[in-house]
């Protein structure tokens, strides 16, 4: 419960935030804090400086483009996504956000924090990977956009580099999505998750089987093709107290099929 000493800044502009992050190698962005503060309590990680993004209104909000593209500010909370009429353009977003942790966490936790943490148990990395989202990263030298394939680099590691910030997540138009997870109890810690999107092609992403979401693009959405694609992925999922590697591999198959089924049902 007792954090190591840390400096705190609450910038009011993106430029200021980027400056603070660039100034200190040990600085970390504080979004909703629903993971980071817990890691700091355990003193398993101890940034020197926290740059609080909660004052950056420019990073909040959801916009629906004329072509159906959704742009979600990195500091938008799960609760805001669930309540957003714009976000309903891609209903799976609200559905999955509603399964994240609990009311209190959803009130503070943000889409940006979720993907930048990239804890294997998080739901949004596989979901956004399946939806083929684009991630806009701002830095001293301007903005760049990376695809989900390039965004997730490892546990707690993403393409967001030192001195940079994720500013928004862009999700292309589409409707035929699905998500399935096996968790500890109802909506508890994730054991394995799978997200699927059938908008034109079949795109599946598996969560909690590797350091980053495992993306599959089977040639068709029939169950056998999906299962085969999971088998072909030659994953070596981690074993832990909740699941053996073998069980995770099996769940990946089952859940991928279920996510695809849900996506197909949405057609």
């Amino acid at each position, binding site marked *: 419960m007792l954090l190591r000493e840390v400096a705190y800044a609450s910038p009011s502009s993106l430029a200021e935030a980027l400056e603070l992050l660039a100034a200190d190698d*040990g600085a970390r962005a504080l979004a909703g804090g629903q993971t980071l503060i817990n890691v700091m309590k355990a003193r*398993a*990680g101890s940034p020197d400086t926290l740059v609080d993004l909660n004052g950056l209104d420019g990073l909040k909000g959801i916009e629906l483009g004329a072509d159906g593209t959704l742009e979600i500010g990195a500091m938008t909370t799960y609760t805001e996504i669930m309540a957003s009429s714009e976000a309903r353009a891609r209903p799976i977003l609200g559905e999955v956000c509603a399964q994240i942790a609990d009311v209190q966490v959803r009130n503070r936790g943000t889409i940006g924090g979720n993907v930048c943490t990239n804890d294997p148990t998080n739901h949004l990395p596989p979901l956004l990977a399946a939806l083929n989202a684009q991630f806009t990263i701002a830095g001293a030298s301007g903005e760049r956009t990376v695809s989900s394939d390039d965004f997730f680099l*490892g*546990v707690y*590691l993403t393409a967001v580099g030192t001195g940079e910030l994720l500013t928004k997540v862009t999700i292309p138009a589409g409707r035929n999505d699905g998500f399935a997870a096996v968790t500890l109890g109802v909506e508890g810690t994730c054991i394995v998750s799978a997200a699927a999107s059938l908008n034109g092609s079949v795109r599946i992403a598996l969560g909690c089987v590797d350091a980053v979401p495992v993306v599959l693009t089977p040639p068709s959405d029939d169950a056998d093709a999906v299962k085969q694609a999971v088998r072909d992925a030659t994953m070596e999922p981690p074993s*832990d107290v909740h699941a053996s590697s073998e069980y995770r591999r099996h769940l990946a198959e089952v859940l991928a099929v279920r996510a695809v089924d849900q996506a197909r049902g949405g057609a």
Partner: protein
Amino acid sequence: MNVSGERTFAAPRDAVWKVLNDPASMAKTMPGVESFDVHDDLRWTANVKIPLGLGGLKMKVDMEKVEERAPEHAALNIKGKGVGAMMSMKTSFDLSEADGAGTLMKWAADVKIAGPVGSMGQRVIQPIVNQQVSHVLAALEREVQNAVAG
């Protein structure tokens, strides 16, 4: 946790051996090395800050070479002590002439992590260890190439 693998370097065995047994070269392969002290041929100490995304994990790492048969085999005991974690690792590598050309390295490590970081769950630790291992191997590759080129 046991991790192991094989890697082939496009370099002669002596060159690879030299890199693996040169503390200065090894220092360059380790993640987040901030300082490095060589005590003698067999014992080194490094201060590292392993980049973990949510804040680096600072550790003092003591390495001791416990077995050596140039140019084919070495084993090291590595002990890391940080505030968030205790790490102990026994690692060994065996070098042989690769079938085609170059050098085949077979390596294995038994990694134990305790402390608050250890309690973060194997599904987190295991990928992190794999990540760090792949960084080390990539860096090693670079060092070997530099050595050959140099």
